[in-house]
């Protein structure tokens, strides 16, 4: 039992550093997108949209990003940031799977499933 426990914690360190790296990339990516949008917004003084309009449909945001509209790029960055915790749950499932920890694959998958239900209720509620 004691041996099994040390093996588990060693594997865990490895798992956590892999997750950490992927999450770092995700967070830094969203920060760069937000910073580019903010930079454009401050330099041009334009949001790219009339008045106080903020693009909030995904289609509009992607279209606006393509046209280099500052608010669209900023919203895209915010959306990427919102997805980083979801990314972390997904990567954790994979990491537990690599570690052959079936119990935690199940637990983390359940968390992802509940999260999806919450998103669904949120969007439609």
């Amino acid at each position, binding site marked *: 039992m004691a041996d099994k426990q040390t093996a*588990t*914690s060693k594997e*865990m*360190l490895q*798992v*956590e*550093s892999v*997750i*950490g790296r992927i*999450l*770092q990339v*995700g*967070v830094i990516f969203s*920060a760069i997108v*937000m*910073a580019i*949008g*903010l930079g454009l*917004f*401050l330099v041009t*003084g334009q*949001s790219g949209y009339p008045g106080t309009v*903020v693009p*909030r*449909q995904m289609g509009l945001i992607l279209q606006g990003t393509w046209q280099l509209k*500052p*608010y669209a790029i*900023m*919203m895209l*960055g*915010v*959306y990427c*940031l*919102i*997805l*980083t*915790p*979801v990314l*972390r*749950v997904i990567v*954790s499932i994979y990491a537990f799977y690599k570690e052959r*920890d079936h*119990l*935690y694959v199940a*637990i*983390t998958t*359940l*968390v992802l499933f*509940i*999260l999806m*239900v*919450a*998103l669904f*209720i*949120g*969007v439609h*509620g």
Partner: protein
Amino acid sequence: MMQTALLMLGVGVFAGIAGSILGIGGGMIITPILTLGMGLNIKYAIGASIIAVIATSSGATIAYLRDNVLNLRVAMFLEIATTIGAIVGALLTGVLNPKYLYLLFGCLLVFSGWNMVRKLRRGQEVLQRVEPDKIAAKLKLNGSYYDKAEMKDVDYQVENIPAGFSVMFGAGVASGLLGIGSGAFKVMAMDTFMKMPLKPSSSTSNLMMGVTAAASATVYFFNGAILPSIAVPMALGILGGAVIGSRIMQVLPAKWIRIVFIPVILYIGLQMLFKGLGVHF
């Protein structure tokens, strides 16, 4: 415009540092500054504060993971309770009188604050049980972390899993029903009920808050509560602040963190109690 951006960046750095050290989202700091200080509509303030929670969480976890302070198994296991709680809370809106919830959680937080004062007096941060907890062992929840303040590895055991799980469920209900970030409850569930050391409690709480907030953030994102000119510079500030804050947290003695945490938790607790009793100030 430049001024607003710089101000939000500065507020963000401050909120990120404080939030990541204590394991509470930046919402408690952000919301009053935006509504009272800048006269921003509460809708946008809530939108900004939910982004703040995610930024604190993501900023802090990238720094924590390298140092392995947080406990991923505890986080994922308890996240089941929090996310289900959040859904139940959202569904209960309009059914359950929030008054009772404010009273219940106000009492819990005050109790937890008092408990922390006792821990502080005892001067002992990590409690080792002679008899390991069966559920904790089965779920592999016991862990260890390297404490930079004490310069040693700290092995710890957790206990009272059902109680911690229940408080986490309640924390989820509270955040779904009352729309409040529940970082203080999460730290309380782990530190007070499950007897986890404060530093892993705080960083695990930070991770969990991000996951829970991601669900509700999508709703706010698509219903137009996010004001990019406010939320973006603030989020950038918080990301930086949270990275700095989590570095500071690791070298701070747990005792100091507790000294800062106690007035904060008592303040939130009393505020909720007063809200539950219908007293406004």
